Structure formats: C-alpha cells, structure tokens
C-alpha cells in the first residue's frame, strides 16, 4: 500500500535554484506550523506518563517523557466516577450514532429520489440550518417532553445534522438511476433497494458520515450540562471540564484541599491521563477520516 502511494506522488522538477530555495523555505514553514498544531497533544501525552513532580517543576517544553510511569492510568481505572463517565460516553456514542445514522440515511435516500414534495422538504431542512428558536425555547421543549435528567435528552433531539444529510444525499444521487430502476423492475421494494443496493455502493461516504457523528457525539458536553442532573449519567467530557477547567476533583473522590505531595501528584496525573482518554478515540479514528476529507467535505460544499 505504502509503496503504491509513494509511486503516485509526482516529482516536481525545479528549473531555477531560486525556486528550490523558496520551496525549501515554504516547506519548513508548513511543517513547523504542523508541529505547532501537534505539540499541545504531545505535551499532554508526555505529561500523562511522566514523573508528576518533574512536570510540575518543568516550565518549558516537554519534548520527551521523563521517568515513565503509568500510575495515572491505573488511578483512572480505579476511579468509579471516571469509569462510569467513560461507559456513559460509550453509551451516548453507540445509541446516538445508530439513531442518527438511521434517520440520516433514510432522509438522504428519500430526498435523493424524485418525489414531488422533495423541493419543499429540502427547503424546510435548509431553513433550519440558518434559523432556530435559540437556546431557551429548545431547553423548554426538551423539558416539556419530560426529558430533563434523562439519558435520551442527549440522543433524541440530535437525529440529523443537515450538513451530513446533504453530503449523503449527494452520494445517493450519484448512484446510476439505471441500477435502481432495474432493481425496482425486478420487484425489489424501496427499503431493499436502499439497503442492499444503494448503501453498499456509497459505503465510503457512509463511513465518513458515521465517523463525523461519532466525533460529534464523543466530544459533546453542553447538552449534558444543560439537561442532566445526576452525576452517574454524565459523559466523560463533562467530568473533564470539572477537573481540567474548574480545577475541581472533589466530585471524583480525589481530595481537593490537601496539598500533600502525593495528593497533588495524583490530581495532576488524573488531569492529564483523563484528557488523553478523552482524546484517544479521536486520535484513533483520525487517520481513517483525514484521508477522506479532501473529497467528502468538498463534494458537500460544492453541491449543496
């Protein structure tokens, strides 16, 4: 695979020396910017496995982990509060993404067919991208539906992101009409055509949209803060907010007041390690998604 990719890269011939120099200078700038983007993640990663005392006293760059220790990750998995929040996050991602995908695929498929009302449906959906009632009416709606402090409040209101739906609809439209027509002539029902014929043909786009939804669901924290009251329903991101931003670890049973060396160390390790855990799924998914960006985002923006 890698060999192939390398062969594909066209080599550029530089006619003038000045062109070569400009190219080198620009390349250095671009890679430096890239490393600047990466550094905060690396810093946190090294801080999570380095000796906490060293990290605390070190005020400069952290280019390499020092006195590697995995104590922090042990602490996380021994901490009920954090483990429950991680499981909660997984629950929200699994059910949220399943729900979103069913709705989005159905909406995108139907809107890609030639239905008389599709023009109106489409306008209706695009309208919601620009106008909304705002935060308070939305909160009251969820509250009237009896979803406050319910796990479903983080799932039910978030079925379709119009942007993702439009990208998927564009992909469905590109399935040749003859394939769909002949399948229908053979007596395949609408659902069957959608699931067994069209979906496999656009599986790359479906994968990307799924990943978008996963990223969104895993990273979401504000609806949880707005709608949930019980701590045992909180997703990981909300707990991270407490320990990283509000600097409050008392709720996960880590002493907040004592300033003894050991407590201080544990608190610091937990901070960095839980941040890494919160980033981990995205860091794992990232290599798969980034390849498809170029096409996915572009197709959507062009044909919307």
């Amino acid at each position, binding site marked *: 695979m890698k060999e192939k990719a390398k062969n594909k890269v066209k080599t550029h011939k530089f006619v003038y020396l000045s062109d070569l120099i400009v190219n080198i200078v620009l390349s250095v700038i671009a890679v430096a910017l890239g490393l600047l983007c990466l550094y905060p993640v690396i*810093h946190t990663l090294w801080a999570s496995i380095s000796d906490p005392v060293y990290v605390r006293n070190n005020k400069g760059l952290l280019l390499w982990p020092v006195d590697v220790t995995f104590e922090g990750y042990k602490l996380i998995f021994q901490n009920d509060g954090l483990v429950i929040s991680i499981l909660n996050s997984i629950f929200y991602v699994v059910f949220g993404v399943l729900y979103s995908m069913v709705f989005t695929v159905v909406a995108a498929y139907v809107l890609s067919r030639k239905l008389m*009302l599709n023009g109106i449906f489409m306008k209706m959906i695009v309208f919601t991208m620009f106008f909304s009632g705002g935060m308070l*009416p939305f909160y009251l709606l969820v509250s009237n539906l009896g979803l406050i402090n319910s796990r479903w409040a983080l799932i039910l209101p978030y079925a379709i992101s119009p942007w993702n739906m439009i990208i998927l609809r564009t992909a469905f439209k590109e399935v040749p009409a003859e394939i769909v027509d002949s399948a229908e002539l053979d007596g395949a029902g609408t659902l069957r055509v959608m699931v067994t014929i069209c979906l496999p043909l656009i599986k790359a786009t479906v994968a990307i949209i799924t990943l978008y939804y996963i990223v969104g669901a895993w*990273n979401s924290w504000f609806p949880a803060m707005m709608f949930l009251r019980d701590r045992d329903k909180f997703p990981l991101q909300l707990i991270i907010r407490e320990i990283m931003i509000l600097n409050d670890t008392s709720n996960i049973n880590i002493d907040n007041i004592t300033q003894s060396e050991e407590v201080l160390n544990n608190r610091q390790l937990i901070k960095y390690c839980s*941040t890494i855990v919160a980033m981990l799924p995205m860091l794992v998914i990232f290599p798969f998604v980034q390849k498809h960006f170029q096409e996915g985002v572009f197709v959507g923006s062009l044909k919307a």
Partner: protein
Amino acid sequence: MNKNSYFARLKIDIKRKKVEYLLFLPVLIYFIIFCYVPLYGIFMAFFDYVPALGFAGSEYVGFQWFSLFFDSIFFGRIMYNTIMLNVYSIIFVFPAPILFALLLYEIKTKAVVKTAQILTYLPVFISLVVVCGIIVDFCKVDGLISNIMATITGEAAKDLLDDANYYFPIYLISDIWQNMGFSSIVFYAALCRVDQDLYDAAKIDGAGRFRQLISVTIPSILPIITVMFIIRMGSMLNVGFEKAYLLKRPLNAERSEVIATFVYDRGLKGNNYGYGTAVGLFSAVINFAFLWVTNFFAKKTENGLW
C-alpha cells in the same frame, strides 16, 4: 377535479411512492418537533414567560425586555466584546486558512503538503472541553505559555486567563490553532482546480512567481473566498458559546462576557426566559442584517450568495 391540477398529481405521486413518503414521515416529524416548534418560543421575548403557565398565563410585556437590555450596564460591555471579538476574528482568524492553503499550494513537494495537512487537521477533532483544558493548563501560573510570556515581558509569570487583556489573544490564537488546517481544505481544493494553462500564459507574459500569485492564483479563488466571507459576516454577533463559556471566569468577565453567555446565564440559570430570548432574538436580527448587507455588496461583484 382537474386531472392536471397540482394536488391531483401530488395524490398520484404519493400513491405511487407511498413507501418513500412513509419512510420520510419520521424525519418530517423530527424536524417539526425539534426545529420548528422551538421557533414558536421566540414569542417569549415579548412575555414575562413562566414555563408552568405557558403563553396564556404569562403576562405580555411588549418590548420591556429589549429596553431593559439596552439600558442595562452590561449592554455596552457585552456588545463591545461580541463585536470586537468578531472584528478581530475576521481580521486575523478568517484569512489564516486562506494563507495556509496558498502556502501549501506553493509547495511543490507533495509529501510535505500531505504531512502538513495531516498535522494541522488534527486539532479540529479534539473536543472543545479538552482544547480549553489544554489552554487552561498552558496559561496557568507555571504553564508553558505563561512562562514564555513572562520571559518576553520580563514580568513574573501569572495566570493569563485571569487577566482580561489577554483574553482576546488567547481566544483568537487558539481558534486559529484549532481550525486553520481544517478550514483550509475548501480553499486548497479550489486552488487545485485552477487551470494550469493560466500560469503558462502568465509565465510567457513574463510574470514572476509573486506576480502569478497576485494575478492568477488569488483571482481564481476569489469567488469561494467571497462566499465564505458572506457566511462569516452572517454570524457577526455569534461568538461560539461553548468556548466562551468554558474560558469565562469572574476575573476575565470584562472581556469574555458575550451575548450567548449572557443569554445562558440570565435565561437558563437565572430563570428569566423572556429576557434571555429577547437578547437572543436581538442578536439573530442583527446577524441577519449583516448577512443581507454583505450579500447586497457581494451581488454587485456577481459573487452573491442569492
């Protein structure tokens, strides 16, 4: 009934494609419940709304909430912060992905372009909570950026987020850091479609590298820049609520309090739904005005959005 009338044809269409229409029904219901029903809540801006009583039981107060907001001591501060943050954002954050795309486009070594792209796309995947957590970590008294700043200014290191003067730079630079790479995709893709013959023609005319950039590259992507600019102008009074809320502290409230955080604090936390909605509605109207005006001028250059 006329066989060719709209409704007659619609009836046939629904009959023939009833499975499709049936499948779409839940989607339709979803949008009506979660996107259209809340629109009705905008009327709360004109009521002293008490959720338990509904509109029928709540008192109609006309424009009271609006005048209360305009007269409040917070009005000046909130409007200044919201508008200035957006003005700075348009000056500094908006051009960043365009410049980055141009930089990538000028690099002829594809491996370098790929590497830079992958690295700069990464931050957009990190949740805002974690991003703000890292900002807090880097800006705390013994944090990395605080100490770099202390070395530059020669003063003792301090928590930068506790100083209102540092709030705008922190907000904007972290914005560039997180979104520059990802936002550059659209511009880079547009650049890749520029007709290469134009460059050959320019070279024959004696245009150097810089001249080609000014006369060929930039004009070619101007339409997409204009579209993005109009969209950006349409959210002139929006400051991403989540980030503002995460970075807000009493000590930097002087600069960090914006319309969205005010709506949340007053409306939801303070249980004053009428007031909160009125402020939100006010900003939505101004936003639309900005969008409309920008589009009006863009249309004169034939790049309008509608």
